[in-house]
């Protein structure tokens, strides 16, 4: 009950934060002088293409870019009626991409959930690999197991992701017949979901997951090992051993749970860093994720597209932190009962 109340409270603060973030995103995008259309108009006038100018001017009024900035924001968010009534983010209209001459929703539609998919797979990979390896490295500290794990980990940290991607593509294709590039075979693109399409996506996911996940895995493994080693020196571990518990069972029940808190708290930060961190990898691997789209949109001041992508990343982050906060409260009674009378 208490936890539910906390979750609702956290959800409320999340919405509030999102609102503040939206203002900041909008302001920052509009900080450079001019916008996509005024740039285009200037260019068109310079080259003497007057017909294009008319169209661009039309778009300017159509998307209210001629209004003051604060009104633009309110219209973009949907708090204020624009040229076509209330039609902003909260009404589900994500705006227009001038660069691609398409609605934002259509451009990002597919890539949106593919991004989520790739990142979720990478996060899962990080946790699934780093957890057991980190625990093993700590439990067998200063043995060859520990040293091997550390060596592999540091190799993972030190290898540039795109290089790893190229190497894996080459050998993956040569020996395992893994596909190169993309997130599905070309014939499935734009097709409705079928079993075949799913299989194609899964096979395509293998290399990207590995590439995006390795450095995170290495970092997390080393941190888990350090945390766990700290915990292993604490008296309650001795108590558990003196009780007659087997080592593996004891490790999981007591010190691991204590050492795990920072990693739960980390879920929130993991998501955005993967989106922005994997741009290069996405370009190299030819993944249809949102990272490269964001990059082009920012470069060309395609403001609605950039704004939407940034909002989406912010949302991911906030959801991530909310999940980790609620999980922490469930996992750690000391946080749950803070302030409760003893």
């Amino acid at each position: 009950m208490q936890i539910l109340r906390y979750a609702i409270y956290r959800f409320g603060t999340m919405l509030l934060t999102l609102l503040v973030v939206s203002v900041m995103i909008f302001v920052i995008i509009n900080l450079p002088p001019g916008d996509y259309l005024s740039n285009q108009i200037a260019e068109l006038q310079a080259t003497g293409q007057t017909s294009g100018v008319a169209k661009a001017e039309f778009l300017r009024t159509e998307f209210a870019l001629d209004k003051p900035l604060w009104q633009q924001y309110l219209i973009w968010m949907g708090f204020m009626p624009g040229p076509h009534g209330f039609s902003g983010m909260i009404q589900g209209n994500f705006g227009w991409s001038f660069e691609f001459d398409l609605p934002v929703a259509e451009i990002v539609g597919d890539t949106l959930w593919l991004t989520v998919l790739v990142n979720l797979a990478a996060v899962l990979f990080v946790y699934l690999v780093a957890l057991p390896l980190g625990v093993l490295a700590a439990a067998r500290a200063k043995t060859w197991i520990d040293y091997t794990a550390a060596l592999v980990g540091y190799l993972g940290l030190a290898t540039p992701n795109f290089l790893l991607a190229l190497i894996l593509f080459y050998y993956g294709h040569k020996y395992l017949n893994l596909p190169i590039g993309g997130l599905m075979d070309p014939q499935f693109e734009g097709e409705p979901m079928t079993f075949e399409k799913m299989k194609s996506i899964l096979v395509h996911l293998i290399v990207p997951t590995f590439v995006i996940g390795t450095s995170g895995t290495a970092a997390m493994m080393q941190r888990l090992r350090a945390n766990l080693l700290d915990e292993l020196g604490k008296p309650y571990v001795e108590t558990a051993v003196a009780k007659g518990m087997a080592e593996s069972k004891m490790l999981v029940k007591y010190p691991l749970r204590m050492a795990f808190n920072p990693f739960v708290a980390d879920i929130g930060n993991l998501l955005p860093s993967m989106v922005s961190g994997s741009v290069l990898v996405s370009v190299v691997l030819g993944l249809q994720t949102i990272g490269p789209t964001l990059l082009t949109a920012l470069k060309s001041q395609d403001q609605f597209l950039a704004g939407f992508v940034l909002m989406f990343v912010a949302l991911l982050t906030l959801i991530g932190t909310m999940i980790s906060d609620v999980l922490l409260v469930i996992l750690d009674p000391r946080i749950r009962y803070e302030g409760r009378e003893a």
Partner: protein
Amino acid sequence: MSPLLTVEDLSIGFGRGDAVVSGVGFEVNEGQTLALVGESGSGKTVTCRAILRILPRTAQIRSGKVMLHGRSGGLSLTDLGERKMRAVRGDAVSMIFQEPMRSLSPLHRIGNQVSEVLWLHKRMSESAAKKIVLENFERVGFPDPERAYKSYPFELSGGMRQRAMIAMAMVSRPDLLIADEPTTALDVTTQAQVLGLINELKQETGMAVILVTHDLGVVANMAEQVVVMHKGRIMESGAAAPMLQAPAHPYTQQLFDAAPSIPANPEPAAPPGEDDLILQMKGVSKTYTMRAQSAWKPEVLIHACRGVDFSLPRGKTLAIVGESGSGKTTAARIALGAELPDRGGEVLFRANPQGAPIAVHSMNRAARTAFQKQAQMVFQDPYSSLSPRMRILDALTEPLEIHGIGSKSEQRDRAAAKLRQVGLNDDMLMRFPHAFSGGQRQRLSIARALMLEPSLLVCDEPTSALDVSVQEQILTLLEDIRDRLGLSYLFISHDLAVVARIADEVAVMRQGLVVEQAPPDTLFYDPVHPYTKALIAAQPTPDVDRPINLKLVAQGAGSADTWPDQFRFTDDEAPSLTQVQPGHKVRCHV
């Protein structure tokens, strides 16, 4: 009948280093308590861990044999496979540890952690285990076992956590209980109750106990057999009573002489003269406000000090004695000007007999700087009160630099002089703190406090982190420099026996109130307040003829409602501090 546990020729070493325990052997009989006595580094803890083979990974048992003749016949614990060893741990032999605060997992409920023993060893169902655990909780003195079962460790006090640990150790009805300094981290009245509980459980179940301790007073109260260890070897072993009366080995003798104790036959002392007071506290109270949990609930007020009146004559020692949370440290911090008292309280300091007293809490900047030179502090933990990255020379001369006293070479000379004054060598100036033992470090922090040549020293439990023999040396040093330099001490301690020796006057504090105040001999001769009586009764003395009187402890250390009428509070209003005899004040109704 063969003994329950036999340890023969046990040697233990870390890595490739020399053995830290060598040739140790002893026997524990059924239903008896064996005390393993020694100072830190004596190998007593390593020895008892070796019995259960829960040594740190780098330590190995190099030779020796540990035999257990318990419920499952004879077992050689040193040769047992790991799986069978696990079956012994927590079942036939269980263990409790020194720090109840940290020996329980903070993330699991007490009930879960205690029941686990039964799940592991008796393969009991959760509900069957719970029934037994609840019985055990009731037995070890939890007022509400159901609630304790559901509690997390951080919701319980230190004494209650140690009871939970004991319940955990007892729940499997072990043949042998190993208790590693089970009461060192506890207040003296709690210690008395926990020791009493262990004794009762021992009598009820007929288990044997190995009690690891550094406190001969605890030994006298608990043990039938004693093994005295020093630097990994046994110095002396045998039956407790004769050894405590006439220790044969010089080391045991030395331990005895160092152990502070309350005098057996005290005489009342003359009331102290109150002519030249260096420090006076008048009506000092301190209230902390805890933020309320929600906007609708009122804020919680914590009265750390309530109407404290002290006066400290020049060249004398006033001791404040109390348990954790009694407000003794708050009082000292206020005396030093480190904390503001509530309105109406006043602290007066008189730097020299002729000068006018100055109010510590309404000084201007210059006066404050002058006062700081006059009043210095010695801290409790010598391990954390010296910066590990500063050379001794720098640590000692820092106060001089702050106050801009002397040239570099003068500062250095003074540092060297102070080192010699506290019994260290001036060639140690360039070393770092890690090169010193605990006792030496405490000498260093005394030297640092003396650097500004103060007239008042506030000592906050300066010996409680030290071994008894070192404690004895530090107390001697403090007495010596007090008399030589004419210092006055405000001495804070939880240990009446330590205070008995150094103080000219003792104030006993409880829950922010001074309940009794008198010269120590008067206090021991004629304690009036039930809480003072409890403190004195709870103090373990190394004398088998003076066991802890648990009844007195329970009576005085309980809540104020259980005290006799004349000491009781009326509507939260405490009786006033009344002079019952010249120099002897008690908080009671007349």
